[in-house]
C-alpha cells in the first residue's frame, strides 16, 4: 500500500517543500463560503506537464499564512488548468477566499493515492459524498462522463447541510444526461426544498446495489463515512471494493511531518484514498 509520489511535476526531489507559483485564472462560486479556484502555473511548461489522478491533492500556500492540503476537483484529462474547490474555514482558506482573479498561490503536488478507476472497468460505481467531500469526487465524474461506456450503473449519493450548500448544482444536468443517477439529500430543508431531508447513508435505502459488481467510494465527514461503510457492508459489498478518502492535518504531503498518521499509514502518502480492508482495523478505534 505504501506508494511513491504519483507524478512529481510540482514537487522538487531536492527541495520538496518549495512551492511553484500559479495564477488564479477564474473563480467560480459554488455555495456560501465554497468556491472553485482555477489555477494556471506561471511556468507554461509546468502547466502542460502537470498530470494528476482523480483523488489526489495539492498543497496550496499563501506566503505569510501557510499551506493547506486541497484535493483537485478538476478534469484530469484537461491539462490547461487545475481546479480546487475550497471551503473557507481557516486562516489560509479564508485568505484565498478574499483573493481575486490574477492573484498568485503557491502549489506543490500532486500528492497521495487515487481512485483506481482503471481497475473498475465494467463495474457499477456508487459515490457517496457529504459536504466538501464532493470536490475530490468531481475528477471521477468528469472521467466517467467522458468514458461512460467503461462503467456499469453510476450513482451519486450526495448530501449537504442545506439546499444552499449543495455544490456543483449547475453540473447535475450534465451528469444526469450522461446516465449518472444523482440522489441528493440535505440535513435541513428550506421553504422551497422539495427533495429529501436526512443524512447521506439513508440514500442507500433508495438504491439497488449489486454487491457482486459494485464499487463504493466515499468522502465526507468521518461520521458519515462510518455509516456509509456500514450500509455498504450490510449490502455485502466486500471491504476491498469500498474506498474511502480521509482527511487529516497535513503539513508536507511527503510522509515526513508526521501529522496525518492513522495507524501505520501516512494519509498524505499512503492515502488519502484507501480501500476499506486496509483501514478496517483502525476505523472503529476512537481517537486514533
Amino acid at each position, binding site marked *: 500500500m*505504501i506508494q*511513491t*509520489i504519483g507524478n*512529481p511535476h510540482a*514537487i*522538487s*526531489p*531536492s*527541495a*520538496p*517543500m*518549495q*512551492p511553484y*507559483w500559479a495564477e488564479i485564472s477564474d473563480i467560480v462560486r459554488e455555495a456560501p463560503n465554497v468556491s472553485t479556484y482555477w489555477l494556471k502555473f*506561471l511556468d507554461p511548461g509546468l502547466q502542460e506537464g502537470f498530470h494528476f489522478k482523480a483523488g489526489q491533492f495539492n498543497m496550496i*500556500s*499563501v*506566503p*505569510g*499564512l*501557510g*499551506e493547506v492540503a486541497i484535493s483537485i476537483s478538476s478534469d484530469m484529462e484537461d491539462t490547461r488548468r487545475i481546479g480546487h474547490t475550497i471551503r473557507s*474555514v*481557516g486562516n489560509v482558506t479564508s485568505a484565498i477566499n478574499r483573493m481575486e482573479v490574477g492573484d*498568485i498561490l*503557491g502549489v506543490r503536488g500532486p500528492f497521495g493515492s487515487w481512485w483506481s478507476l482503471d481497475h473498475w472497468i465494467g463495474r457499477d460505481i456508487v459515490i457517496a459524498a457529504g459536504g466538501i467531500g464532493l470536490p475530490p469526487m468531481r475528477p471521477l465524474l468528469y472521467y466517467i462522463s467522458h468514458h461512460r461506456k467503461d462503467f456499469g450503473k453510476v450513482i451519486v449519493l450526495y448530501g449537504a447541510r442545506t439546499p444552499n450548500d449543495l455544490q456543483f448544482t449547475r453540473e447535475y444536468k450534465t451528469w444526469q444526461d450522461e446516465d449518472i443517477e444523482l440522489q441528493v439529500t440535505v440535513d435541513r430543508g428550506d421553504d422551497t426544498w422539495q427533495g429529501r431531508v436526512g443524512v447521506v447513508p439513508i440514500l442507500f435505502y433508495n438504491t439497488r446495489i449489486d454487491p457482486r459488481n459494485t464499487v463504493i467510494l466515499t468522502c465526507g*465527514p468521518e461520521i458519515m463515512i462510518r455509516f456509509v461503510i456500514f450500509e455498504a457492508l450490510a449490502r455485502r459489498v466486500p471491504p476491498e471494493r469500498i474506498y474511502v478518502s480521509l*482527511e*487529516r*492535518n497535513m*503539513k*508536507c504531503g*511527503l*510522509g*515526513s*511531518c*508526521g*501529522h496525518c*498518521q492513522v*495507524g*501505520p499509514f*501516512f494519509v498524505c502518502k499512503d492515502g488519502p484514498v484507501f480501500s476499506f480492508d486496509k483501514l478496517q*482495523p*483502525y476505523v472503529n*478505534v*476512537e*481517537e*486514533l
Partner: protein
Amino acid sequence: MADIYASVGSTVAIPKAALDKLVAKLNQMGYSVLGPQIQDGVIVYKSLKGAHDLPKGYISQQDSARYRLVYTGHPRYFDVTPGAQSWKQFFFPPQTELAEFTRDEKGRWQTAEQVTDLTPLALFGVFPCDLAAIQIQDRIFLREEWKDPIYWSRRQSAFILAVNCLHPCGTGFCASMGTGPKTNQGFDLNLTELDDVFLVELGSEAGRLVMEGMPILPTSAFWLQAGQKSLEDASTRMGRSLPRPQDLPELLLNNLDARQWDDVARRCMSCSSCTQVCPTCFCWDTRDSADLAGQNARRERLWDSCFNPDYSYIVGGNSRPNARSRYRQWLTHKFGSWYAQFGTSGCVGCGRCITWCPAKIDVTMELKAIREEVQA
C-alpha cells in the same frame, strides 16, 4: 617507532593524549567540531576546542525523572551518558527556515534564493544508541523519491566519531534494541576507551584521512581483549530491558483498546518532553510569518510533537483530543507502526524518554503492562 599504516576497516590504538590532536586535525580539515560538555549540570553538545572540554572524570546517574552528574575523578573522557540533548538538533534543527518569499514589482510572489553555506560538522563522541538514531532519521529524511534539503545539506558532509558505550546508563536498553553498547557501522571513526589508550576502528576514507599523522601504537592483543571484555560487561549492565521488541507492532496495533492506555493517561501530562528528547522523533510543523506591509514572508520548520493539541487538529475537531489518544499514538508509532513505515523500530533504547519524563512514565514498564494485560 615505525610508521603503522591504518587502513579502512582496521583497528589501531592511539594514546589518550592524541585526543587533542584528533580535535585539531578535524578543525584543520575544515570541520566545526561538536562534542559533549557539561553545562548546567547536564551534558550538552557544543563547539569542542580540545579534550579538556570533555567531561573527563564524571559519571552520570540516570533513573526515572532523575539525571545527576557525579565527579569521581576517573581517567576516562567518555563515561558520561548523554543528557536530554541528542545530535538530532544538528541535522534536523529545532527551528529552521524552509523558504523566504518576496513580492516582485508586479506584486507577485517570488521564492528568494536560499544561500546555504554550511561548515561541515564533526560529531565527536557519538554513542551507539545515538548513531543508530541518526541512521533511523536517515530513513525518514533521505528517501528514494526526495531528500530533505535541510537534513541532507548537514548530514552529507558530517564526520562521525563514534564511541562504544562502556558505562551504559540506568534508563537505557540498547542491548534489547540491538543498537548498543557497541557500534558496528555508520561511523568514520569508532573509539573504545580503555584506561590508558583508545582503540580506533576506521570506518571510512574520511576517517583514514583524519588518522593520517596520528601517533599510532601497535594494537596489542591485551588491549583488544580488554575492549572486548568491557563491551561484554557493558551489555549486562543496562538499567532497563525490553523483551522481544519485534513482537510489539502486533501487540500494540491489536490492542488499541487496552485498559493500560487509560491508566497511563492518568499520569501523562502531554508535556511532549519524551518527543523532544527522543533522538528519532521527527514530527515537524510549519509556521509562516510576514512583515506588516505584506511584501516579505517566510516559512519556518519547527519540531512538533504528537502530544501538542494542534498536532491532530482539523476543521471540525481534533482527532486526538486527550492524553490517552496522544500517548497511544506516540507509543504505538515508536514501537509499532514505525516498522511498517521505515522497516525498523523507532526506538534505539537510549532511555531519554524515561529519564526526562517528569511523571516518571517508563516505556519499558508501559509495554510490559500492556503485554501482561493482553496475556492475562
